């Protein structure tokens, strides 16, 4: 209800002040492989139905950001900022709604929190209406902590190279790293300056979305092993997703499904912004 009122007020202001405003949607994916720098892989990350639903049948101009999913937020942020800056200028977009999933929510917080870091950041921030952040590890992810425990670092000799090593985006998402970044580099958490634009979070609270889908077993195993506090979506705990911004709603879709428009129609909810 609160969000509806805020939406109404903002829309009224926008309509009154800028009758010519051109709205666009930006999607920022989460962490993953280096191949997420490939546009088609990034598009597949969301799934066509999520993009279709959010953009009301592709009628709203949209940008699917693609960046190497193994990098730190400040590296990813530079790629994402470059793509948004070029796209918004080329298409005269001056009202941007940002949709993020997982680590994508941290990447956009980096941009919002550091307007002086790069000349492109402030113009982007100026044009953002708000951010809808799905399952962001705002306070870190206990699953990322376990990734460190399971890495080859602790082994000796030839075994080291055979066991997966943490990449930078996973290191970025440990609860320690996010505590550190939240208190020094990022805004919007308790005791820190407010973010310049509103963030609405959507936390995942379900694990078992599809019994024939092996993804659910993997996430449920991770959730059980990690011992995430409270509810979680297999990768990010609810408390962490809700550590920054306003709670929009929670979803039973797990971490794999809450970036898609399948188990729960999250894309339909995102489309209500337009």
């Amino acid at each position, binding site marked *: 209800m609160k969000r509806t009122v805020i939406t109404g007020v903002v829309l009224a202001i926008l309509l009154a002040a800028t009758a010519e405003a051109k709205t666009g949607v930006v999607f920022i994916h989460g962490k993953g492989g280096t191949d997420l720098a490939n546009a088609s892989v990034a598009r597949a990350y969301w799934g066509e139905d999520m993009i279709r639903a959010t953009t009301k049948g592709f009628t709203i101009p949209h940008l699917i950001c693609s960046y190497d999913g193994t990098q730190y937020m400040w590296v990813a942020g530079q790629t994402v900022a470059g793509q948004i800056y070029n796209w918004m200028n080329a298409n005269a977009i001056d009202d941007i709604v940002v949709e993020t999933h997982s680590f994508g929510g941290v990447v956009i917080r980096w941009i919002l929190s550091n307007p002086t870091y790069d000349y492109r950041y402030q113009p982007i921030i100026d044009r953002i209406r708000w951010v809808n952040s799905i399952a962001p590890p705002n306070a870190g992810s206990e699953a990322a902590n376990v990734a460190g425990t399971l890495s080859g670092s602790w082994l000796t000799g030839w*075994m080291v190279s055979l066991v997966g090593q943490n990449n930078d985006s*996973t290191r970025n998402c440990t*609860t320690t790293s996010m505590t550190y970044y939240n208190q*020094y580099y990022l805004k919007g958490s308790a005791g*820190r*300056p407010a973010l310049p634009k509103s963030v609405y979070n959507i936390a995942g609270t379900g694990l078992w979305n599809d019994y024939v889908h092996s*993804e659910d077993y993997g996430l449920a195993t991770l959730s*059980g092993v990690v011992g995430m506090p409270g509810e979680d979506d297999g990768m990010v705990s609810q408390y962490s997703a809700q550590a920054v911004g306003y709670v929009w709603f929670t979803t039973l879709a797990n971490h794999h499904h809450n970036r898609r428009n399948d188990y729960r129609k999250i894309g339909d909810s995102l489309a209500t912004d337009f």
Partner: protein
Amino acid sequence: MKRLLILLLLIPASVFAADVTGRFGPHETYVAPAEHAPANVSRMFVRTVTREATSIDLPVAGESGLLVWTIPVRKSASRLQTNGADTRPFSARLTTPTGDVLQPGDDGSLDRGMRRFRFDAAEVGIELPRGTHEVLHVARGEAASYRLALNMPDDMAGVTIVAAEPDSRLVLTTLASPLSRQPGEPVTLRAELRDGERGVIGARVTARLATPDGKAGAPVELTDEGSGVYRVVLTDLPSAAAGAWQVRFEADGKTADGIRFARTGSGELVNERGAARFGTISAKIVDGVLRVTAPTDVKVAGNYRFDVIVAGAADANGKRPALAWGEGVRALTAGSTTLTLDLPVDVTSTEGLQFDVRLLGLDEVGVAARAVVRQ
């Protein structure tokens, strides 16, 4: 001159960006940076064994479900880069303390209280050896040892086993501090073992530190303080490598009831470069704004962000209202310099104010210097 102009053009525009300032909301409170990250809470342990091992005992504390996750490690590192199905899937045999056996390939059932699931490593979302992983689920674990028989195929180098009891009362809580460690500061590694409300004493608790580039050192033993708390204070880190150091804790012992257990925990801290040092920081009202001045000895040249958070006088509970903040990018050369920042604060005097002053690296993320000054 021409060369200087070209050099100036090469400097990022951000270096010349104006300072950014703001005010906190009327009821916001100053929050000091945490001394350490939230403690890691563990009800699981991890073991990695090479192919020479034919079986491994898993001590289980009981009164909880049990998950046994087996992560096969293939001999060829190239397998980490491929997505295809395993040519010879690995399947372990689990024998319970009562003699029930879940044979390789047997998926078990709800009725038997034991089930086997499989999933692809890529679906977990963290970096693990690729291929098919198995998880064995025991509905209610007995407080005794389970035996996992490992008949590894030829292409396997070993297996990592994670045994978790998600609802166990036996909990290892671990942390490393300080979160942001400047050169010369001691490092505290702390672990706490509790069996429900009771502290667990007499366990062996060790910790290993790994450098930011992932090289682990030798284990150090934590001292049993007799209440369930185990601790060691290191006067220095094994190297000056800057960045996030990881800590892996291992605890093995018996509860007061004689039940054997094992737990693996983690911790992390950021080792700073010691890139700068503040001198005596001062503040005064100048033309209606609050000017904070920080003499600074810069040891590592580069781009930094100069941050100031201003808080008001402490109330009876020691809480301070957060008043204003400011930040500005500074390109600094090595040597002495003076940093200033003007902040919008509705005060006529600096008396009672607190300034949390930070210099943060932008070329390399990290806290170069930090000081808290109260007037």
